[in-house]
C-alpha cells in the first residue's frame, strides 16, 4: 500500500541527482541572488539610519529573506508546468487511467523532487545561516513545530498549484497562468518583502489569503524564540484550516473540470 508511494518518491530523487550540472548552475544562481539581496538590504538599512524598521533589523530581514528563498526552492513542485504540458500533449490520459487517484499520484510523484531539494537547497542554507548568525535561529522545540508547518505548507502549495493546473484544462495558456500564480504567491507570501513591511491595508488583504500559510507561517515559527507558544499553535491551526479548504476546493474543481477534458488524438 505504502510501497507504491515510496517507489515514486525514490524515482524522483534519482531523477534529480541525474542532472548534476543543472544543480550546480542552480546553486550558483541562488548564491548570486542571495548576494544581491544582502547588498540591497544592507544599503537600505544603512540609508535608513535606524537600527530597526517595523520591528525588523537588517539581520532579521536578511535571515527571513534568505530562508524564504531556500524554502521556496525546496517547496516548489512545478506542478502547473507538468499538468499543463501533459494536458496539452494528451499524455494526461495515461495518468488518468493509472490505478491511483490522479491528485495523489501527482503529489507523490513530485514529493521525490521536494525531498531531494530539501537536502540540496534548504538544509545547506539553513546550516550556513545558523552558523553565520550564531544563535539568531533558536534550536529547540520550535524545530518540531517548524517541521509540521513545512509539511502543511507543502500541501497548501501543492493544492494551490493543483487548482491553477486544473485551469489549464480550460485554456492552453500555461505560461501566462503559471507566471500569474507565481507572482501572486511570491508577493503575498512575504517571500519578496517580509510581510512586516506591508502597509496596514495590504496586510489585512494578505491575512485573508492562503499564501502566507505557505512560506511565512513556517518561517515565523522557525524564528520564534519561545518554542511552542499559543501563537505557534494558532499559526499551525490556520494552516490546517487552509489545507482542508483547499483540499475540498481542488478536488471539487478537478472533478467538475474533468468533464471538460478534450484530448488531441493520442
Amino acid at each position, binding site marked *: 500500500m505504502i510501497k507504491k508511494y515510496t517507489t515514486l518518491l525514490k524515482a524522483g530523487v534519482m531523477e534529480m541527482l541525474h*542532472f548534476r*550540472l*543543472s544543480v550546480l*548552475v*542552480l546553486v*550558483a*544562481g541562488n548564491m*548570486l*541572488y542571495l*548576494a*544581491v539581496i544582502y*547588498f*540591497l538590504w*544592507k*544599503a*537600505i538599512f*544603512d*540609508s*535608513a539610519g535606524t537600527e530597526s*524598521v*517595523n520591528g525588523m533589523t537588517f539581520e532579521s530581514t536578511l535571515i527571513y529573506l534568505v530562508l524564504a528563498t531556500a524554502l521556496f526552492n525546496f517547496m516548489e513542485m512545478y506542478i502547473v508546468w507538468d499538468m499543463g504540458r501533459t494536458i496539452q500533449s494528451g499524455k494526461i490520459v495515461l495518468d488518468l487511467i493509472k490505478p491511483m487517484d490522479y491528485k495523489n499520484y501527482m503529489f507523490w510523484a513530485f514529493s521525490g523532487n521536494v525531498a531531494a531539494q530539501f537536502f540540496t537547497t534548504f538544509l545547506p542554507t539553513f546550516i550556513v545561516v545558523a552558523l553565520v548568525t550564531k544563535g539568531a535561529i533558536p534550536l529547540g522545540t520550535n524545530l518540531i513545530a517548524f517541521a509540521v508547518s513545512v509539511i502543511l505548507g507543502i500541501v497548501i502549495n501543492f493544492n494551490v498549484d493543483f487548482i491553477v493546473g486544473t485551469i489549464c484544462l480550460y*485554456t*492552453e*495558456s500555461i*505560461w*501566462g*497562468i*503559471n*507566471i*500569474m500564480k507565481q*507572482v*501572486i504567491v*511570491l*508577493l503575498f507570501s512575504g517571500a*519578496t*518583502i517580509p510581510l512586516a*513591511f*506591508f*502597509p496596514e491595508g*495590504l496586510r489585512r488583504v494578505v491575512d485573508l489569503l492562503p499564501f502566507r500559510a505557505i512560506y511565512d507561517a513556517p518561517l515565523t515559527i522557525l524564528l520564534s524564540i519561545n518554542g511552542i507558544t499559543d501563537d505557534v499553535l494558532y499559526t499551525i491551526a490556520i494552516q490546517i484550516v487552509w489545507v482542508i479548504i483547499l483540499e475540498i476546493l481542488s478536488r471539487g474543481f478537478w472533478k467538475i473540470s474533468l468533464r471538460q477534458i478534450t484530448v488531441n488524438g493520442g
Partner: protein
Amino acid sequence: MNNKGLAFYIKIYGRILAQDLKSKMSYRADFIISMLGMIFTDAAGFITFWIMFRNFSSIQEWEYYEMLFLYGFSLIAITPVQCLLDNNWSLRINVREGDFIKYCFRPINLFFYYESEVFDVKGLGQLGVGVFTLVYAWIKLGLGCNVMMVLKVIVFLISASLFMMAMQNAAAATCFWIENSFYVLDLAFKLKDYAKYPVTIFGPVFRFVFTFVFPIAFIAYYPSLVILRPDNVPLLTWLAPPLGILFFYLSYRFWMLGAMKYNGTGS
C-alpha cells in the same frame, strides 16, 4: 550569405512576422492571458518598490522616483530580447531533436532566420508597463524635457538592450556544447531582475562582475545616469553604446560558432 541588403532583411522580417502573428491570433485566449501575466509580473516589481519606500525614504542617494526611473528603463531595455529573440528558448530543443538542421539550408543569415521565426507579442505588455513607469517617474522627478534628452534616452535604451540581447544569446548558444542548458539560459534571464538596482549598492567584486562579466549594470544604471545625474556622468556611460555593439557582436559570433559546428542528429 551576408551579401543581401538591409532592405531585403526588413522586407522578409515583415513577411515572417505577419505569418507568425496570424497563427498567434488563432489562440486569442492564450494571447490575452500571456499579456496579462507579463503585465502582472512587471506591476509586481512596481508594487515591491512602493512597499519598500513606505518604510524607507531612500537607498543610498536614490529616492523612490529615481528607483522607478531605473525600473522603467530596465523594462524597456529588456523588451527587444523578449520580443525579438524569444526563439532562443526553443534553441536547445531544436538542437537536441535535430529540427535545427532545417534552418541551416536557407540562403539567408542563419541567426536572422532562426530568430525571425518567433515574435513574442506579450513583450509589448512589458514595454507598456516600462514606458508608463519611466514617464511617471520622469514627471514626478520634474526633469523637464527637450529633444536632446529624448534622443539620449533612445540611444541609451538601444545600447542597453544590446547588452541584454548579448547575454541571452550567449547563454542560449551554450546548448550547442552542453546538455540541459536550460538552467544557464534561465540564470542569464534572471540576472535582468538585478539590473533595476544602482550598481553602487554592491561591493567592489560584484560591481566588477555586474559591469564586465554579466554586464547588467549597463541595462539601466549606467545609461540612466545621463538623465538622472547629468552633471556627473562616468566614462563607462559614454562607452555603453560601443560596448553594447561589441558585446552583441561577440555573442552573435559565439552563437554562429556553435551553429556552424552543428552536425544534426542524423535523423
